[in-house]
């Protein structure tokens, strides 16, 4: 055979390895922790560098029944959907690596979620499952801050990930994460420079980069995924080229995005060419997630157990090393 000289990308930079969750010996109560990041090459280029930590799968759960979810998801989770502890356990049983708890704007009676309510939901999830936990506020600055501060204080030392930090609202969340031994998730709207800027602002407050995940935002398949796909490739390239402020693992929410689409949400009155509703919805979520894994996602947050199975198979195959340096 004629020898082939394969072009090797030699990168000066690498992504930080970040640990989520703390076990008892580390000041928390988790039975397991996960490490994400640590890449020294573009995704799955095992012949250039070992990829020390596989990407992980998170399952999205809620503190209360999410009424606006697709009927397919409401059916899937029907036995546990009104109880975050049961939901957490059921989610863990699907084989995910971590849980992502979204706090809602209001409780079952329609009253604004209180800090006590949020803390009790988080505690019940921590009690029911030994997996590392990410907690996201409802997405309204003032309420997010109130709830997340209470949660952070009540779970000191657990190394939760708290979110969402955005350019308009990050100070309070970062401060409480810093004071209570947690991490934060920093979200920016699909832009390399905005992502860097926010990471600079957060580290300026004193939170070390080892405690920041970045969420570059993504769109679902058919609804802007190409922007998310490319911005993740660019962020990862920047990290490998040595840009300190982009050297963070990336978390994305394909489940949230994919299940918002009409293709997943609606089963009737849609074109026959869309095919079987449930399988289409699972494919929508799986394809969105796999495309994002290909572009560098370290954490994909999903909603349906069948998608988890398929994405797990994909990750296992992507991590299988047949050809080394």
């Amino acid at each position: 055979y004629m020898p082939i000289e394969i072009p090797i990308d030699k990168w000066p930079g690498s992504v930080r390895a970040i640990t989520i969750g703390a076990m008892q010996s580390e000041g928390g109560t988790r039975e397991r922790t996960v490490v994400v990041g640590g890449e020294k090459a573009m995704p799955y280029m095992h012949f250039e560098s070992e990829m020390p930590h596989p990407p992980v799968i998170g399952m999205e759960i809620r503190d209360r029944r999410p009424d606006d979810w697709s009927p397919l998801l409401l059916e899937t989770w029907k036995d546990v959907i009104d109880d975050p502890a049961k939901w957490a356990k059921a989610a863990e049983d699907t084989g995910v690596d971590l849980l992502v708890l979204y706090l809602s704007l209001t409780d079952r009676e329609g009253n604004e979620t209180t800090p006590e309510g949020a803390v009790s939901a988080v505690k019940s999830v921590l009690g029911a499952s030994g997996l590392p936990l990410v907690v996201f506020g409802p997405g309204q600055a003032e309420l997010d801050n109130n709830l997340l501060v209470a949660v952070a204080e009540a779970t000191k030392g657990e190394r939760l990930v708290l979110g969402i930090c955005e350019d308009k609202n990050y100070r309070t969340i970062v401060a409480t994460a810093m004071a209570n031994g947690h991490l934060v998730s920093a979200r920016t709207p699909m832009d390399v420079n905005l992502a860097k800027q926010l990471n600079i602002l957060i580290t300026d407050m004193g939170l070390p980069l080892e405690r920041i995940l970045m969420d570059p935002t993504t769109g679902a398949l058919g609804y802007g995924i190409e922007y998310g796909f490319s911005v993740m490739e660019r962020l990862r390239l920047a990290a490998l080229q040595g840009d300190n402020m982009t050297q963070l693992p990336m978390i994305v929410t394909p489940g949230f995005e994919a299940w918002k689409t009409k293709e997943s949400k609606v089963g009737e009155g849609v074109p026959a060419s869309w095919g079987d509703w449930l399988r289409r919805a699972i494919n929508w979520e799986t394809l969105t997630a796999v495309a994002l894994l290909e572009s560098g996602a370290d954490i994909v947050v999903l909603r349906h157990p069948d998608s988890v199975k398929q994405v797990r198979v994909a990750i296992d195959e992507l991590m299988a090393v047949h050809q080394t340096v």
Partner: protein
Amino acid sequence: MALSGIQIYKLLPQTNCKECGFPTCLAFAMKLAAKQVELSACPYVTEESKAQLAESAAPPIRLVSLKSNGYEVKAGNEVVLYRHEKTFYNRPGVFVKVQDDRAIDDIKAEVARADAFTANYVGIDLTIDGIAVESVSGDATKFADAIGAVRSASQKPLIMISLNSDVMSAGLRAVDGETPLIYGASVDNWEAMAELAKQHKAALAVIADSLEGLVDLTEKIKGKGVEDLVLHPASAGLSTALIMNTQIRRLALKKNFRPLGYPSMAFASKSADAAQAITKYSGFVVLDQFAPELAYPILVLRQNIYTDPQKPIQVQPGLYEINNPKTDDPVLVTTNFSITYFSVANEVEGSGLPAWLLVTDAEGMSVLTAWAAGKFDSERIAKAVKTFNVADKVTRHRLVLPGHVAVLSGELESELPDWEIRVGPREAVDIPKFMKQAL
């Protein structure tokens, strides 16, 4: 790789005879490098120089096209590793596989379903590109019959799968005059397959489980005069496929490595295989079977990944009529980003209720993106109302804003004092209910 002006100059006669219309050979060479003139303008270039110049002008990844009965599927001619560097050009051909051990009527029915499949995505009709027929029986007659059955149900291009050259030959005779892809040539059968490809002017898939194996085969086959090749890095599992596809593209683009300068192909037995093939460099993707609920998202992914990052897909700004609106029907406002426009237009149309849809020039951005970028504000909306003479078309001046930009309603009331400004729902899915109940 493209040659510089100086490199081209060295291949010219260097006599400065001016017959090409330029004062010197060097001036002509510079124009050639800039692709502003044709080489044929110089009558004196040697055959050897011509060959060298042609070789250097060839794209690093050869364009291979499969043809049948007016259909064509192309792959290759890509120029980047990452779509943000420029764009990906030729959307991978998506093929559905059938096997020749099935009953003829089953084959016909399955192929007819795949052939008829069409899903509309942002105004684009997504369809399957062709059919792959696999010989599992090993029987030449059966293979030819299966291909006949396929042809009775679909006229689209074929990929023909058998490692046995006698079987392949029978298959090829059934579709003479077309340019199918024949799969394929391995280390054991390459001579016979190359012969068939040449005879029938078919494209040929080259199969090996290592890059060295692929190179060895493409070189030998090219030596036999077959140039339309497609690489199949036959690998178990996603990581090897990804790595081999990446190495092939890097070698082609960065090293102009001719032996691997061809499009590649992949077989997808699960959705993740297809997602990787689309995002990471395959030129042809063969799906194990046809299912609309998988074909649709795969084709959408392909559409998304192959969108030019510099040009979001847009529709023409203007006043659109949906369900024959009358002068007292409502005017809904949206942006000219295709995904946005079609989400809204489809819902309004589906509701059966008449409405006017005012599409503003938001430079192809979604509602919130455009709003955040200052391309969708009360001023622009008011301007669109004037530009498209909306006030003359309706007697009842009622304008519905997308729920996501409810904040604009106050300002818009001052911009358009004689209009009633309403705020619609946030998501398009809720438009029919809103139109029935609130308008």
